[in-house]
């Protein structure tokens, strides 16, 4: 079952477009470049760079079981790296892509999400507001001075995700570009959010009345959601 087939295709097209605009840089995952992990709170006064937050942000996690969709170990950066930025505040997009062998979509979502949410970085505050697809990072002057950058952040995320048993391949895309990256990704983001919300609703509410469900159309479009729905309905009927 492929929940994110269409958004993944769009993301590929987006990366190709960024490449043609000469704004795409790519790095390879190196586990030794991962940043030390430690829960931190960075105050405004201690901040060297602020990513996302009020500046605008986008956060997504997508997964697939299909081979050849994820470029393993690739860290893509669209826009300036932290040490070549011109501004203190930058918009921020963070997209995590994973390939693996999954039995249950919700469990997969939970594992991937919790792994990403629990990533604590020394000298960096990170907050994610999943229902609004928002992300907010504050990088302290100390962390920046010690060499923290988005490549190292990417390596930390991928290292954590690669440790999950079902995960086979991982990739991350960051965008700090001020020219409208968020609006270019808006249709993908909307689709991903609809799929995740529909899935959460199925697991949270167990409402099987499709006629009255606001996500009816999303389920019609995304085959994977229909499969989850049918499986959950079967499980519930089996219990009654």
């Amino acid at each position, binding site marked *: 079952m492929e929940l994110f087939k269409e958004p993944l295709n769009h993301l590929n097209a987006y990366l190709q477009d960024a490449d043609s605009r000469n704004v795409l840089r790519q790095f390879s995952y190196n586990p030794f470049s991962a940043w030390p992990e430690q829960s931190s709170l960075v105050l405004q006064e201690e901040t060297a760079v602020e990513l996302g937050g009020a500046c605008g942000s986008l956060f997504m996690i997508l997964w697939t079981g299909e081979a050849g969709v994820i470029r393993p170990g690739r860290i893509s950066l669209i826009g300036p790296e932290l040490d070549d930025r011109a501004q203190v505040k930058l918009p921020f997009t963070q997209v995590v892509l994973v390939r693996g062998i999954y039995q249950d979509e919700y469990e997969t979502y939970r594992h991937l999400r919790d792994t990403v949410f629990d990533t604590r970085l020394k000298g960096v505050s990170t907050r*994610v507001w999943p229902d609004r697809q928002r992300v907010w990072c504050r990088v302290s002057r100390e962390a920046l001075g010690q060499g923290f950058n988005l490549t190292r952040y990417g390596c930390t995320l991928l290292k954590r995700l690669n440790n999950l048993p079902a995960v086979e391949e991982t990739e991350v895309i960051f965008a700090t570009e001020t020219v409208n990256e968020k609006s270019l990704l808006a249709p993908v983001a909307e689709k991903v959010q609809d799929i995740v919300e529909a899935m959460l609703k199925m*697991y949270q*509410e167990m409402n099987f009345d499709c006629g009255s469900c606001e996500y009816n159309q999303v389920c019609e479009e995304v085959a994977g959601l229909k499969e989850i729905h049918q499986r959950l309905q079967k499980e519930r009927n089996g219990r009654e």
Partner: protein
Amino acid sequence: MSEVIAICGKGGVGKTTLSALFARLILERKEIRALVIDADPTGGLSLALALPIKTTVNELRKEVVAAAKSGKSDARNLAAAVDYRLMESLTEHHNIAFLAVGRPEEEGCFCQVNTFLRRSIEFLSEKFDLTLIDAEAGVEQVNRRVMANVDRLLLVSDLSFKGLRVAETVQRVASGSACFRQSGLVLNRVRSEEELSRARASTTLPLVGWLPEDETVYRFDTSGQSFLDLPECSSLQAARPLLVARF
């Protein structure tokens, strides 16, 4: 390690004044990072410090309850939303981060949301050297709505009979809930040694400090000037040893 100080007492005795003096003193100590929480629904500390309230904890609670009711989110996503919004709700001023609790509005039982909020405030508080809470009345309110444990409970009173009795009551109730480590009385608007001795003799509470009647504080209070701009004065001198007891 982070320390939590809660300032309690009867209304109008000077809790907010002491909290504002502490905030002003924290600015002097740049090595200390402090979370200052206005837990009084009237929001007096925000006015005393001239720090705007972005979103109160209770407004945030309403948002999260609405998200929980929509069924489009699960527990972890709600907890993450609370963390994010809490961070956004902080008003920062140098080494101070200010948070207002706001007016409580009960909308049925949303224990899970209340728990998320309290845990998030506790988690946030751990990242600061000092958390200062200007409380509404008793420590049980702090305990229920803000955080489970307080290190130092400062009971503020003026020299009035009622003020002292309320401070004793708060102490008694708080002792029952065993949610603080130390407590002590701070007398406010003391005009003479004689008044101080009389008040000390009329209460069983241990006196840990006192603030004099202070013309500068009165002037700032009546003109609405920020206490963060308060010049050196007798009240600041009297409050300094109380704040730095641990630092």
